[in-house]
């Protein structure tokens, strides 16, 4: 089932077309900015994070993963009023980690993706929390129930997002 150890040769590597590479992250950032106005509960989701994880695990290239995460994160930062780099650093780490793990694990199954998303959501939040408190000096509140709920919600949405990404990814 879910997560199985595989050798690098057994894992398939995918790529995305240029329109998909540019439009999907842009759409994710756009929806993340627009949907909370209509559906306030949507702020618990982090669509750009899910896209970062999806791209990283499909490409299975740490370099591509960290660069994708970096660009998406910085784009997301640019829409907030906080200094640019908070989401950038967090998503760089997630992109690198997800793609590195994607080489070693089979993450084609929904269960594996669910767990993977929860883990990387937690990594993302911890990195963001540390940077924003330690470097920027923001007052941050860490509430376990909220983080747990957000992690599960993002994992559930992540499974759907990965299914959509499966449709546009191309085998190399």
């Amino acid at each position, binding site marked *: 089932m879910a997560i199985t150890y595989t050798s690098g040769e057994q894992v398939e590597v995918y790529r995305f077309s240029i329109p998909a590479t540019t439009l999907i992250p*842009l759409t994710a*950032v*756009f929806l*993340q*900015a*627009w949907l*909370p*106005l209509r559906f*306030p509960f949507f*702020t*618990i989701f982090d669509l750009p994070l899910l896209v970062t994880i999806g791209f990283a695990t499909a490409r299975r290239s*740490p*370099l591509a993963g*960290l*660069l994708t995460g*970096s660009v998406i994160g*910085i*784009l*997301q930062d*640019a*829409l*907030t*009023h*906080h*200094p*640019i*780099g*908070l*989401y*950038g*650093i967090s998503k*760089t*780490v997630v992109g*690198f980690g997800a793609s*590195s793990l994607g080489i070693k694990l089979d993450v084609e199954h929904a269960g594996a993706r669910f767990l993977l998303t929860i883990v990387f959501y937690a990594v993302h939040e911890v990195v963001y929390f540390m*940077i*924003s408190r330690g*470097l*920027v*000096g*923001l*007052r*941050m*509140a860490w*509430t376990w129930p909220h983080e747990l709920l957000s992690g599960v919600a993002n994992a559930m949405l992540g499974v759907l997002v990965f299914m959509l990404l499966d449709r546009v990814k191309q085998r190399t």
Partner: protein
Amino acid sequence: MDVLGRYRNLIVLVGVLFAQVLGLAVQVRRTTDSEPTRLIRIWAVGAVTPLEKVLVWVQTSTGGVWHNYFYLRGVRAENRNLKQQIERMSLEQVRMSQDADQARRLQALLAFKEQFISRTMAAQVIGSSGSELSRSVYIDKGESDGIKPDMAVITAEGIVGKVLRVYRSTSQVLLIDDQTSGVGAILDKTRLQGILRGTPAGEVVLEKVMSDEAVPAGEMVLTSGGDGIFPKGLLVGRVTKVAPGNELFLNIRVRPAADLSKLEEVLVVTRIDERQAQPDQAGAARAVDILAERLPTVPSKPENAVKADTPAPVAPSNTSSDAKPKAVSPEASAGGAPAARKTASSPSSSPGSASATSLGTSAGTSSGNAATATGTPAMKVSPKPVKAAETPKPQPAVEDSPH
């Protein structure tokens, strides 16, 4: 070289992270209000907001067609209710305008400078930051519409936030529930002042109110005007919970009057004017006269109220027309205690030096302005207080002030 090739990914990761941390450190160090907007923000906003504008336009257009042409159920009943409401409010307005006139006269005496919103611009909320930790929204008005940083953003319900960054056709508004926002606020009844801040959890708290003060839940919170952004007196919200906080201050939670999670249209305050209050009618009125009108007194006798050849200072009610010269019928002055009260304070309300002197002593520097504003030869009164001794003085402390 092998080492470099082997750890290439790790080296790139460290390099990218280091560059971002460095950039972050520079931004944190240079964060000032006068800092120009970074190009990357302009690009990001330019990429996202046009689509948001289109979507909002489509949404409002279709919603408008549906609500204005198809879904008209209950409109007649609503119209009837609204008409009744207008009638009730008209009556209320008359009463309030009288109070307002009184307030203006008092303000004129004190040379009170009031701030008022003289120009606003309606704007549509088109997007948000998309982050729980950055509570800000984007509106569809920007530099080309005359929007500038630090302008107040409000709704009919209450204040919303302030303009943080301005782009060509959009602006970013920092909401009052963001942890980096701060609004000067005052409690309506207790008149305690504090600073309104957002919390990381998105709540709004009033800080810097001493813990020995009594603040009841449900009290209204208004802007104090101390922040230089929001004019004084705008509704912020209501106190929901009061608890002892850290150190010497109370932890006061406030529920914002405006629903910050469902903002659609807002008003940007593009101009705030400051003017000195002037009474509508230029009657020479003293503070004591105005106060006396509100207090119960013993009616004076009709024969003493007005002399036959003297136009009496009429003040049966506290409307602005009271100050106009009017010959009052004996019945009117006999029946109205306010006429007697006016008479009692007549010496200082006559135009001339007496009026100026009295104002000068009671209102300090405002005397000149107030005297100018009220220096019309409106009221002729008898030179000595008629029946002043017979009328109980409602405000002896003020009346007996040294003037």
